[in-house]
């Protein structure tokens, strides 16, 4: 049969050019799949790799590390309890961690965060490359595929000089659900190893329709990306202005200047297409507000204990924004104002930056010396399983780490108030420990 290796290779090459990379590959398994491919590439290059990661990394990175026997160590991360948001590390925090673990092969930063906070990537790249230019800077940029197209947004990972970036183009980038891209610069990345990892992981039955969507979005963004992304920002600003006129105070918006002062030393900017709303002055939770909005046929990106997160999307109309504000306004009027709401301090914090026992061995060891205990009795014990809230995709309790009181309090609070728990025992009655 006549083989033309052309259309996919050509589409990848065009995307690399548009997104500022040397090379690009398309993913039909989201950034979850891309993360597995990139970590597999590290194991093809290094005998026993070690990576430094931010605490907000997606579970797919942790799972890939476990599958592949990669050691990971955490970079110090702060937390904003009002917006339930992990904050990107400062460059000096990255340097501190490098000094503690100089044998590391890569630094993986999740930026922007789910809440929209963008790390100081340019400075982090400088810090890492000054320390050792061979250490790769890898960015889980799942939420930042639109950054490349507007100066009103933070710089993209490729613009900031990162070596590899994994993007969920389906999130804010315009393509159909499940699609993403891996971009890289070839200076410190061996393309042949990346292609080999890709071949090992990628499905041999990809949906060409999904690939066509990525290719089509690339073509549109190449020509009109700036206007399209800035139209998203304008819609978000319109929404926030309306909220301000009708609802604030006491509704809290993350990028409102007063709230933003708390995190600005840590970040290079904010994803202005997002609106994170905190209900700190109300008795009600974000879960309750999210459910009420859903009953009014409005779907928000994420509800949490104290927050809801909303994205302005390409298809969202100004009429829909007006309707949303009307509904929000009438719902909030029925809410109960309170003086002070108790917020749980960092539920993602651990006593150690490295696991007590490596996660990839914790589960195996648990087969012989593990036991199941009530979650409330598990504080200070070593977890033999992950427990997370979804959406977010960041485990609260991590296999191989000691369980803290804040881990447990946060999970039980979320469960009690209707959040979705992803775990072996989603009722949170029990946990597997060592």
């Amino acid at each position, binding site marked *: *049969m*006549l*083989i*033309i*290796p*052309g*259309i*996919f*290779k050509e589409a*990848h090459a065009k995307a690399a050019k548009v997104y500022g990379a040397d090379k690009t*590959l*398309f993913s039909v398994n989201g950034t979850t799949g891309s993360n597995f491919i990139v970590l597999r590439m590290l194991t093809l290059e290094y005998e026993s790799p070690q990576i430094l990661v931010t605490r907000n990394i997606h579970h797919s990175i942790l799972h890939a590390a476990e599958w592949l026997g990669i050691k990971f160590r955490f970079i110090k991360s702060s937390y904003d309890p009002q917006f339930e948001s992990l904050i990107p590390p400062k460059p000096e925090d990255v340097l501190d961690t490098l000094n503690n673990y100089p044998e590391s092969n890569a630094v993986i930063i999740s930026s922007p965060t789910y809440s929209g906070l963008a790390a100081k990537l340019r400075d982090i790249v400088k810090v890492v490359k000054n320390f050792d230019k061979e250490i790769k800077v890898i960015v889980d940029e799942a939420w930042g595929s639109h950054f490349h197209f507007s100066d009103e947004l933070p710089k993209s990972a490729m613009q900031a000089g990162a070596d590899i970036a994994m993007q*969920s183009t*389906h*999130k*804010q*980038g*315009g*393509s*159909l*659900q499940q699609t993403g891209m891996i971009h890289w610069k070839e200076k410190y990345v061996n*393309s*042949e190893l990346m*292609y*080999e990892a*890709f*071949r090992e992981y*990628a499905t*041999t*039955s*990809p*949906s*060409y*329709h999904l*690939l*066509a*969507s990525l290719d*089509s*979005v690339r*073509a*549109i963004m190449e020509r009109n990306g700036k206007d*399209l992304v800035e139209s*998203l920002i304008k819609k978000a600003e319109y929404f926030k202005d309306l909220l301000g006129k009708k609802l604030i105070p006491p509704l809290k918006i993350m990028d409102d200047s007063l709230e933003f002062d708390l995190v600005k030393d840590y970040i290079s900017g904010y994803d202005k297409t997002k609106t994170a709303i905190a209900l700190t002055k109300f008795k009600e939770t974000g879960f309750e507000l999210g459910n009420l909005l859903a009953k009014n*046929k*409005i*779907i*928000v*990106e*994420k509800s949490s204990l104290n927050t809801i997160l*909303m*994205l*302005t*999307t*390409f*298809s*969202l109309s100004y009429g*829909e924004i007006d*309707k*949303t504000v009307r509904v929000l306004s009438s719902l909030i009027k029925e809410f109960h104002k309170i003086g002070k709401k108790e917020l749980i301090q960092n539920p993602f914090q651990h006593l150690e930056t490295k696991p007590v026992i490596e996660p990839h061995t914790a589960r195996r060891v648990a087969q012989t010396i593990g036991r199941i205990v009530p979650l409330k009795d598990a504080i200070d014990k070593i977890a033999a399983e992950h427990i997370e809230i979804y959406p977010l995709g960041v485990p609260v309790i991590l296999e191989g780490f000691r369980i803290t009181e804040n881990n447990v309090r946060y999970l039980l609070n979320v469960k009690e108030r209707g959040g979705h728990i992803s775990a072996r025992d989603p009722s949170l009655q029990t946990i597997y420990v060592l």
Partner: protein
Amino acid sequence: MNNESQYDTPIADALNNLGGYIKWCTPSVLPNQKKISNIYKSDISVSAGFLGSYVDNTRNLQRSTR
């Protein structure tokens, strides 16, 4: 048996009922991207080798290990 509505299809039914929702969530799909006219007719596998291969993006590794 040709009437597709006679089958019990909860996922397809739910998706067909999403039209009235206001979505402040992913995916943020660009409405004007190039559409494929009939996805059920144009769905195709790697058997259509003349389209090339998605996973064998290049032959670099093969060349380097030859």
